[in-house]
């Protein structure tokens, strides 16, 4: 073709391209193209799925089990020795916080028992220096959510409902999602979790018919959980 000749003279540096040759994609690429179209359709679903499940508290938070400075075993203390939760977490019935016990609580017993234990070295160090034991926080709500322990344990919600069977945990981990939807599930249907007020810290307690007992307790105690935003967000 004449035009090719002109182009070749003008662009002398360029390699010569044989004019009649055209690249043909192999036929299997058509299948690939169709497939990738399908992938494009699926991709948003995949990403939504990834974010929904990957980012959900079920995935990110449940099972969170950081290493603690002291290998304190709830299974031993709360389970085997059956020490009541409130022996250490004293403020749970009156305060929003369920306080982590001061070192002195540990030393009540451990000034006499296992006084030489290596595991307890950080506790003894804290007792001697006055510096606190730096426990790692496990159950952590966002700063804009205000949870109050006292109002729950005084109104028929047991420790195990949110914290799981701590009496069986060697190292404590997060058992429940602690997400807003999870909170609301119970605020909408508290009868699924209500228990008699003398069974709050009883880890082992299980009724024969939770729903029946729960409904009864709900009436007796006048439980009407609020679902207002300002109940938790202030």
């Amino acid at each position, binding site marked *: 073709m004449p035009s090719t000749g002109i182009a070749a003279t003008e662009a002398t540096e360029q390699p010569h391209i044989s004019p009649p040759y055209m690249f043909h994609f192999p036929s299997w690429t058509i299948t690939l193209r169709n497939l990738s179209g399908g992938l494009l359709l699926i991709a948003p679903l995949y990403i939504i799925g990834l974010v929904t499940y990957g980012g959900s508290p079920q995935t990110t938070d449940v099972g*969170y089990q950081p290493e603690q400075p002291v290998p304190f075993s709830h299974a031993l203390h709360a389970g085997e020795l059956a020490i009541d939760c409130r022996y250490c977490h004293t403020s749970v019935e009156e305060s929003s916080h369920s306080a982590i016990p001061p070192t002195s609580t540990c030393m009540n017993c451990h000034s006499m028992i296992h006084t030489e234990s290596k595991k307890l070295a950080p506790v003894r160090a804290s007792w001697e220096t006055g510096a606190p034991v730096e426990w790692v926080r496990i159950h952590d709500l966002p700063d804009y959510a205000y949870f109050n322990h006292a109002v729950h344990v005084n109104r028929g919600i047991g420790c195990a409902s949110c914290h799981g069977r701590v009496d069986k945990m060697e190292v404590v981990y997060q058992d429940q999602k602690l997400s807003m939807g999870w909170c609301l599930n119970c605020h909408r249907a508290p009868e699924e979790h209500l228990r008699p007020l003398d069974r709050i810290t009883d880890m082992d307690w299980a009724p024969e018919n939770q729903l029946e007992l729960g409904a009864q307790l709900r009436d007796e105690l006048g439980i009407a959980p609020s679902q207002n935003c300002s109940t938790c967000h202030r």
Partner: protein
Amino acid sequence: MKTKTYWSSLSELEQTPEFQAALAREFPDGADKIDGVDRRRFLQLMGASTALAGAGGCRWEKTELLPYTNAPENRVSGIPVHYATSMELSGVAQPLVLTSFEGRPVKVEGNDLHPDSGGACTVLAQASILGLYDPDRSQEFLAAGQAIGVDAALAGLAEVRATYAANGGAGLSLLLRETSSPALQAAVASFTAALPQAQVYRYEPVGRDSERAGTELAYGRAMRVQLRLEKARRIASFESDLLDGHPSALRNTKAFSAGRKPESEGGMNRLYAIESRFTTTGASADHRLAVRPTQVLAVMTMLEAALVQQGNLTVPSSWGQASTASGGDLGTDDKTTKFVAALADDLLAHRGTSLVVAGPEQPADAHALAQRINTLLGNVGETVLLSADPLMALPGSTQSLSSLVQEMRSGNVQTLAVLDGNPAYDAPRGLDFKGALGNIEKLLHLGLFCDETGELAAWHIPAAHYLESWGDTRAWDGSYCVIQPMLRPLYGGKSVLEVVDYLSSGEWPDAQALVRAAFNAAGGGTDDKAWQRAQHDGFLRGSEAAHDAIPGRALPVVTPDAVALSTAMPDSGNLELVLHADPRLYDGRFANNGWLQELPDYLTKLTWDNALLMGPATAEHFELTHGDMVSIGAGSETLDVPVWIQPGQARGTLSLTLGHGRIAAGHVGGLFADATASTGFDAYTLTGVGTVGFVTGVSMTKTGGTFVLASTQEHHLIDAKGKEERDGDPAMPRGGVLKDGQPFVVGHAADHGDDHGEGEDTTPELEWQKLQVVKPGRVAELIREASADEYAGIQAAVAAAHAADDHAADDHAADDHAGDDHAAVAHAPAEDDHGPGPNPIQAVAGPELLSLWKEHSYDGHKWGMAIDLSSCTGCNACVIACQSENNIPVVGKEQVLMGREMQWLRLDTYFVGESDEPEVRHQPLTCIQCEMAPCEQVCPVAATVHSDEGLNDMVYNRCIGTRYCSNNCPVKVRRFNFFNYHRELKREENAVKTLAYNPEVTVRHRGVMEKCTYCVQRIQGAKIQAKVEGNRDMRDGDVVTACQQTCPADAIMFGDLADPESQVSKLHALDRRYDLLAFLNLKPRTAYLARITNPNPALRAEPVLEAAAH
């Protein structure tokens, strides 16, 4: 007929183009720009940051829980503890209660056990919590500006002490603030005993020297004047700061405001104010006479003469000769003469139950004369009590300071120890304290800040904050108050008490032991129980000073002349300037407090600066307008300062507050060393030998420059729809329906097919188009008022209408007219053929209101509030209480200028009447928690939703910042976080500020809307408490909002409207209750109680309820 005009600023009264433009906007200009970044660019940036945000972590960062090693007794983690303590200001205690979380004080409230507080608290004391956590506080011991460490500093101090212990203190002088602390006075006594050659001086820039001098003049010794406003039915205030600024202003306000409520037993009191600048007292007065400061005393002599003449009274012989000059003799104008005559009559009718009081800017003569007039009226011993002054027996502040300066100049002072105080800034400039410092060898400074004085000091010692130290003080009533520390000194500071005791004994004392010893001596006794009780209560019960009865002494004769009383506009060079304490910064010591700097002034609404105030006539005469720079000259000193035109300021007078223009206050108030500009202008420049008071012969010239002042007066204009809608039709300011230009019975025309009201007035459908709906003027809707007489008439009419209704119902004879009257009260027209409805205060214009959507039903609590405009004095205490309680950020002057101030609660101020002599109406306004809330309907993400207790919940974590809610809010109470205003706290040096946060309230982030929540954290706390206490019923008073708690006027009441016996329900049922913008069918939970005034019929120019009584 003439309609009462309300206006919020002069530009509104004159309808300037700027005001018209401001009306048309939701936020002031630039409010939607981000420092020049427009919305489009912002969205681009936001998109990019969102993309990056996804890369962040999925779990919260790892945090530690740090328990106590040995838990203190009686402290439960998560439950705040309340401690009583006191703050001493100019030698007077302010009794306080601190809320402390885990040993961290976060909020200051008044001590409700102490009568000088009654639970209320001043803005200064409330904001002092921010001062405790001020990162600019002095943190190091300095020698010539260099940090030297505690040990070296204390060793140096020991050397000084040793030198002077050897020579008996010759050449050593102490300069203290005024103090009534028994412990400190004892320490000073032992200091002078140990070092007899040493001298002690005192200085307080804004003390009450003139009042002390006045009582000395009258009684031979300085006395404290205790006011008993609960007994005073008639009060005459001569430029006094009775209701704001007075050391017992809280107690005064409580008693005064109780007498402003028409429901109060014993009837309403009446307040007359004679003053030059607009004080809080003047703004609350029934009658106000604006005169120049030099004329105040003259009016007082006229009053005395009138009392003697009209009441045929004789001044007791010991008091000397009574004033005789009458208004006529003095050639005053008719208005003043008439005012004084009416005031004299009223006071004479209330002998023993009236009160005359002068203010700190007035000279000693005025205070002495006030005492003589009170004696004449038989008020002394009734409304006026005298008690011993507990301050140190030294000459007055300025006298003491000038003798110190004299000693310094004559070389008798080698070492001067300024123990808390800042004379390099706040000493009268005429004394040239700074110059005199050149004559001494060593300046030692103890202060919270390394301020103007600290910068000049050879040694600077950081002071312990009052919340960090042991101490004691006396309240205005003389009672012994304990100061107990809430926490250890953050920076190892020392208290004045410790340093004085160290200088006398040579050993660092146990301050608690010193206080205990003083307590024992002050009548507490050695019983530990009494001491514990005093610590618990915050004061020693029964320790208030005894009231003395002292015969008066002959007073110097004051004879004002006609020239002095002239009302003509003086020329430059003859102007009068009032210098007074700043209501926010006091003498300047609070200049680095962001809450106070950004707190809009009670009248000018100025933030961040002071300005020279003058009346409109003065400004016109000198051809000045807002923001014009003028140079004012007093004596040999001049100061360039911007002008602010303040309606009501007397002709030919200027006023300026002290306390601004700091150059070494800190990064908020001004720090030249770190290139931080001062706020405002230093009025101390103009002080000769005294500070607070007035200066005559002042000149003023325009410099040609201008200055931008940040006033919030025209922000958040409720009436963005324009002037016409705002004021309504002059013929019908409350709205209604006109037919052929005549008011028409609306109940019939707009009954939407309801079949009642058949009669002659019924309009055939074809006639409808002739009807013209007149919307109500909104200010008439916002502020409602009546005089006491008019209100009594309304109450009678309402009672009669109810009786008629009951009668009609009993008879089953449906009288159309009675039915109409009833409708008029509930929701309809301002008037019909029978004249206005029985209650014009509650009248709502327009047709019967129908709800656009299904109304909420409420089964449980119905939270509600009532705000009493009769009681409110506009003192601003509620604004700071809200700021402290709800973690509200400070945004800075530039942001305020753009209308971005964040205070949830604002005090709207309206002026009524002529621009030269207006009256003032304050209206505290915050979210009124509408049941039919317009904000909730427009939020696209349901971030503001209705709770089943009637709150408009704001859910920060849902908010995406569209600001639709604010756009749709008819009262403009929503505040938007244009920036992350808490960002600066992430810097390490500012971390200490986070300690001031209330942990019960979320700290809001950029892009989030916020507003008053009715202190929902307090509501939830009280509900939880009731549930924990065996699910008991909640009691009235369980929930107290922060603003209500601190209000000295008891103007705010909160509670459960579902309980008909609650106090708030009873207030909502009053005849003077009304709803804001009721024609919008908002059904707000906050109701207002109309302002009821008590004018003197002899002086009343026009009916108060005029606007409604057409």
